C-alpha cells in the first residue's frame, strides 16, 4: 500500500507480490508482481512457455506458490484451495475448452449455477437454473430462439465453446474474470462477435485479466499489459509503450508467436 498517491481513480482489486513457482529444476514463474485495479483490463503476454498459464494457476489456487503472495480485495488468498478462491468471485476459463459433451449447451451452466456463491448472492435460493442458464447464454451471443442453446455441447463449433466458457464465468457472477487464451483458434468473424462481450463486461464494472497470444486484438481492448519471459515480468505498461521496449522486442524476436 505504499503507492497510495498513485491510487487516483479506482481501488486495487488484486495484488500479486513476488509470486514464484518451480517444477523440479524448472523455474516456471519467478518473482512476478503486479497490481490490478477494479474495472481494469490487464493483458498478460509473453512467448510460449513463459509461465503465463502457471501464473493463472497460482492466482486461482490450482497450484500452490513456492513464494510470494496473492491479495484479493484486501484478503490474503495465497495457497487457498481453488474452490474457495472461486467463491470469492474469481472465475477463470481454461486454455483447453472441455465442455460436458453429452449435455445440452445450457445444461453446461448448471454446474457453476450450483455454486454456493450463486446461492448466497441470490439470497439463499437457486431459482430455476435452466432459465437462468438460457439467459446467460443469450448474453454471450447464443441466439435465443435458435436450437444452438439446446445442442449437445460436444457438437458446438469452437466459437460457441469459447462463448460457453465465458458464460460459465458470468454464471458465477465473478468480479474478476481471468481468460486464458480466449481468442486462440478463433476466426476474425468469431472474434468480432466475442470482443463486444468483453467490452460489455468492462462497462458492467468487471475486472478482467486476459492471457493472450493474439496481440493485435488484445491491444485494442487492454488498458495495461504485463510481459512475461522465462517466468519473469520483464515489462509493464500501456500496450503501445510496452512493445517499444527493447527487452520485449528481444523476447519476441525469433519467437514465431509475435502475431496470432
Amino acid at each position: 500500500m505504499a503507492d497510495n498517491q498513485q491510487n487516483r481513480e479506482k481501488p486495487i482489486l488484486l495484488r500479486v507480490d513476488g509470486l514464484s513457482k518451480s517444477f523440479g529444476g524448472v523455474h516456471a514463474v519467478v518473482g512476478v508482481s503486479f497490481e490490478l485495479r477494479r474495472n481494469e483490463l490487464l493483458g498478460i503476454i509473453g512467448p510460449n512457455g513463459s509461465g503465463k498459464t502457471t501464473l493463472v494457476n497460482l492466482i486461482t489456487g490450482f497450484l500452490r506458490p513456492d513464494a510470494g503472495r496473492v491479495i484479493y480485495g484486501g484478503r490474503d488468498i495465497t495457497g487457498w484451495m481453488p474452490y474457495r478462491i472461486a467463491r470469492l468471485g474469481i472465475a477463470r476459463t481454461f486454455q483447453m475448452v472441455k465442455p460436458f459433451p453429452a449435455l445440452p449447451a445450457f445444461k453446461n451452466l448448471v454446474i457453476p449455477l450450483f455454486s454456493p456463491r450463486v446461492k448466497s448472492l441470490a439470497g439463499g435460493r437457486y431459482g430455476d437454473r435452466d432459465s437462468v442458464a438460457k439467459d446467460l447464454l443469450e448474453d454471450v451471443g447464443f441466439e435465443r430462439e435458435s436450437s444452438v442453446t439446446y445442442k449437445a455441447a460436444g457438437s458446438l463449433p469452437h466459437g460457441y465453446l469459447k462463448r460457453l466458457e465465458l458464460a460459465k464465468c458470468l454464471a458465477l457472477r465473478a468480479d474478476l474474470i481471468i481468460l486464458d487464451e480466449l481468442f486462440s483458434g478463433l476466426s476474425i468473424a468469431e472474434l468480432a462477435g466475442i470482443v463486444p462481450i468483453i467490452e460489455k463486461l468492462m462497462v458492467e464494472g468487471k475486472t478482467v485479466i486476459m492471457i493472450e497470444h493474439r496481440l493485435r486484438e488484445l491491444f485494442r481492448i487492454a488498458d495495461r499489459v504485463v510481459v512475461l519471459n522465462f517466468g519473469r515480468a520483464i515489462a509493464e505498461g500501456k500496450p503501445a509503450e510496452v512493445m517499444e521496449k527493447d527487452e520485449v522486442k528481444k523476447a519476441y524476436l525469433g519467437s514465431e508467436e509475435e502475431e496470432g
Partner: protein
Amino acid sequence: MQQTMPTAAGAAPARRRKERIDRGIKARSDDVFALTSYREMLYVAIPPAIPVVLLLVLPLILPIYWQKVLLSAAVFAVLAMSWDFLASVGMVSLGQALFFGVGAYVAGILDHYLGLPVWLSIPLGTLFGGLICTVLLLPVLRLRGIYFAMVTLVLPLMFERIIEATGLLGGTEGLTGLTSFPNPWIELYLIGTVVLLTLFGFRRLMTSDYGLVLKGIRDNDRSVMSAGLNIYWYKAQALFIGGAICAFCGAYMTHVQMFVGMPAFALDYSILPIATAVVGGMGTFAGSVLGAFLLVPLSEFLRGVGGWRTVLYALSLVGFIVLLPEGIFHYVRRKYHQFERWVGVEASS
C-alpha cells in the same frame, strides 16, 4: 464394433449403410405432455415396470433353491449399481469387496458382541460401513487416475490379511451363529425393495442437477472446481452413498448367512459387480440389474465347472469392455427406441 455410428465408411463393397431412426412413438413420448393414447403410455410405462413386477412376483413363484439365486442376483445387482455410480463420478473401484466386507463385519460385530437385533445392526452396519470406507479412502480422493483403483484393490486384501494375522473378530474362523431374519419372505422382499430403490434412486439422482455436478467431476474436475464447488466434498458424499449401499449388502448377507468371515472380502465381491455392470451396460444402472440377473443365474448353471466361473467372468469382462463397451442394456434400449434399415449409399455428391 462400430454399431453406434450410423456411418458406413468400411462397407465399401456393399455400398449401403445402416440407418437408425427414432420410432415415432419414442419421439412423441419423449415429452410427457404429448402422450395421446394408452399405447403411448404403455410404451413409456412398461420398461420401468418390468423390474418392479419381476421382483414382486418372482419370490412367490420360484422354488426355494432359485429363491436363493434370486437373492444372490439382487445383492450383486446392488453392488454393481454402486460400482456404476462410483464409476460415473470418476472413481473406478476394483474393490467393492471392501465396502461389502466392512459392512458385513460391522453388522457381525454389532450382533455378536453387542447382541443388537437385526433391524438395528443392518442400518448401523450400512451407516458405519459407509463411513469407515469413506474415511479410509479420503486420502485417495485428491488424486486423479488410477490411484483410486489401486487402493481399492489393495484394501480388501489387506483387511483379509490383518484379520488372518491378528486373529481379531474371529480370525480365520469368522463370527458364527449370528441372528437370522425372522422369515425368508422378509429376506427376499427387503433386498428386492432395495434393488428397486437403488435403481430408481440412482437413475433419478444422476439426472438431477446434483448428479450433473457429480458427472462433471469425472469429465472435467478442474472446471467444476473453478465453479467454486469443493469436489472433494462431493466425491466424499458420492463415496459414502456408494459405499453405504454396498455395506448394506454386506450387513444383509451377514444375517442371511448367519456368519461373517474372511470370505466377505473375497475377490468375488469385487470382480462380479464390475463384470455385471460392464456386461449390462455402464452408466445406466438398469444395465447393472440386467447384467446381474443374467450372470448370476448363468453362473448357477455353470456350477459344475467350479473355479472356471471366475475365469469366465474375467474373460467376458474383457470381451465386453473391448468389443461391446456399451453393454447389453444400451443395445436393447436402442432396439426399443429406434428402428434400423439398410439404405443404399450413393457416391458422395
